[in-house]
């Protein structure tokens, strides 16, 4: 299995009484009341250092993404950070690490700019880019960037088609699209990877995205904060659709994101991470459904499906779940988060990966209010005690990972260097 250290770059010092009466941590949290640019200087630097530590300790990839107008994560353009990480990994001789951009939101930026930026990262890193092509959340695309919800998916589809063509065309071409019109396209630079960097489609749980992936043989990354158990329903249906579309069950078609905290014992882990778990779910994920899915965002069929199946579609938890009454203990028990001793975390993640049939796991080892030193500890312990074990998963199977940078595919499992950071 390929394991990525994924970072949201959150605001780590919201006050105890946050969010109070604020309707949402997204868009509605006044910067002038809660934000401190000097703290953000530290957050960005720490976050980059945490990702670089993971790179040194043997993770297969390091990952960033895009969100707007909120303290949950404020990489407004993940490619700023991807480019930084490309250069830093080059300079530190870490050219075995892939750069997972999960990624730049297609629907709300000019696709020609995104094609260029991804090409820049691929060139700068010497062909280590994995290009995430996310549809994006309504709160980012429509609320923060003003894109009409009814046009959100159409824009995304056209943007993806444009980017793939701009990367690969061996002639000038005109693009007379609905949302992009360019009479002469001739992208400079082009990616190093031929014909183009591997792509991955991150999504919430929209059935239309699964078919889109299978039709094009693209892998899918299920981004949820509600753990492996809540994902059964989603990944099972993803694999059902794969079979229906004549695709094999190659686990590398699927990725899953998991929040993880490791300490010496289960008890110590719970004590150590509880408040950061609660900070994440109670403060940062204070995100109402009416922002995630403004009317027109979900297609009519998906909308009706969701409404017909009742509120708690994923049984264990989803964005309709009221998180506020849940304590860290509840979230550990429901496995929204995987928190425990190295053995516990290993077992849970391995069982989850097998049950979901995923070949890519993304772990968030800094989350919520977790301070820099604790994040480093978490990354180190995970890298030493959990990572090598997980990386062996699927190795005894004949599956090939077609969705990883070519030059990094044959890499043997590395023994992590013990860090001094």
């Amino acid at each position, binding site marked *: 299995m390929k394991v990525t250290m994924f970072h949201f770059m959150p605001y780590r010092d919201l006050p105890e009484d946050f969010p109070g009466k604020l309707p949402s941590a997204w868009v509605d949290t006044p910067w002038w009341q809660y934000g401190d640019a000097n703290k953000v200087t530290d957050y960005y630097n720490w976050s980059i250092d945490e990702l670089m530590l993971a790179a040194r300790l043997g993770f297969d990839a390091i990952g960033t993404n895009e969100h707007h107008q909120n303290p949950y994560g404020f990489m407004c353009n993940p490619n700023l950070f991807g480019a930084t990480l490309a250069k830093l990994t080059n300079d530190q001789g870490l050219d075995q690490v892939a750069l997972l951009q999960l990624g730049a939101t297609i629907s709300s930026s000019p696709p020609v700019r995104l094609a260029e930026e991804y090409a820049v990262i691929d060139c700068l890193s010497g062909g280590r880019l994995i290009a995430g092509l996310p549809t994006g959340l309504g709160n980012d695309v429509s609320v923060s960037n003003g894109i*009409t*919800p*009814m*046009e959100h998916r159409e824009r995304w589809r056209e943007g993806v088609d444009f980017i793939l063509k701009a990367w690969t065309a061996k002639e000038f071409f005109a693009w007379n699209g609905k949302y992009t019109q360019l009479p002469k396209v001739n992208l400079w630079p082009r990616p190093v990877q031929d014909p183009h960097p591997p792509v991955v489609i991150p999504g919430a749980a929209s059935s239309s995205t699964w078919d889109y992936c299978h039709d094009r043989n693209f892998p899918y990354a299920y981004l949820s904060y509600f753990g492996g158990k809540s994902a059964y329903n989603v990944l099972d249906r993803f694999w059902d659709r794969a079979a229906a579309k004549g695709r094999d069950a190659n686990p590398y078609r699927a990725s899953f994101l998991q929040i993880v905290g490791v300490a010496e014992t289960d008890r110590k882990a719970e004590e150590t991470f509880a408040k950061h778990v609660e900070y994440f779910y109670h403060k940062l994920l204070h995100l109402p459904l*009416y922002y995630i899915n403004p009317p*027109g965002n979900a297609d*009519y069929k998906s909308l*009706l499906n969701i409404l017909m199946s009742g509120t708690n579609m994923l049984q264990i938890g989803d964005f309709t779940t009221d998180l506020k009454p849940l304590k860290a203990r509840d979230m550990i028990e429901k496995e929204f988060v995987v928190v425990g001793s190295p053995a516990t975390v290993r077992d849970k993640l391995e069982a989850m990966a097998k049950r979901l049939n995923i070949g890519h796991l993304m772990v968030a080892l800094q989350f919520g209010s977790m301070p820099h030193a604790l994040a480093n500890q978490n990354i180190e312990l995970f890298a030493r005690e959990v990572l090598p074990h997980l990386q062996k998963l699927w190795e005894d199977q004949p599956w090939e990972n077609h969705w990883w940078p070519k030059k990094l595919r044959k890499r043997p499992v590395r023994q992590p260097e013990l860090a001094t950071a």
Partner: protein
Amino acid sequence: MGTTAIVKTIPVRHCNFEAKVKTAGSGPPLVYLHAAGGPIWDPFVEGLCEHYTVYAPHHPGTGETARESIHSVGSLWDLVLIYEEIFDALNLKSVPVIGTSFGGMMACEFAAHRPERVSKMVVLDPIGLWRDDAPVAPYMLMPPERLVATLYKHLDSPPVRAALQMPSDPKDVAVVTADLVWALGATGKFVWPIPDKGLNKRMHRIKAPTLIVWGEDDALVSSIYAKEFAARIANSQIEIIKDCGHVPQVERLEILKPMVEKFLSA
């Protein structure tokens, strides 16, 4: 309520849209344009049917139209041209048009595009203009209970309770809810994220004598907008209905009905 409504299908060449127009009543023709939540055949429309043959087109993607049809209607201009084709197909040469909220904006857009086709106009709490000091409430970004509280002043009044009545079968509730959300998205396509899409520049073309009606306590679009509409429509008059929210046809039908009838028959 006495009138038997039928739904006419009108193939529109523009955008290949298959239009659906609900029709009932007898008498001279009148066009009714519904609000952002989709077509509703309420007692106000029923009342209009007593004196008029009411034509109520369904916005693309709502009511009886194909849900996906909204994707073929790219712009506000497309939508206005679709209305023109519908008027042509129904042989409506010069008729009164009533529009409520989003429908009020569309009535103004159409009356500005083809001033000679609208003989009189009534707009009920229309959107379509913007003042920074009185922003239109973000009605597409609200939980249901806040949306309802934004629409109505008296949630407990019998007509409001009747308007909010949900079906008893949960499956029907799911369909009604999906239709409502989709209607907000399908109409929202032409007003997102701020309902100020140039009507301001076009309204001077409107010739129809216009009645501008507003609920005094409208929390979705403030009644101070009545003056803004009146200032841009040459032959217009304002009626403010006291103790009333965004939907006078539900909350104050007893006042609105004679007011509109008097204006149209004058």
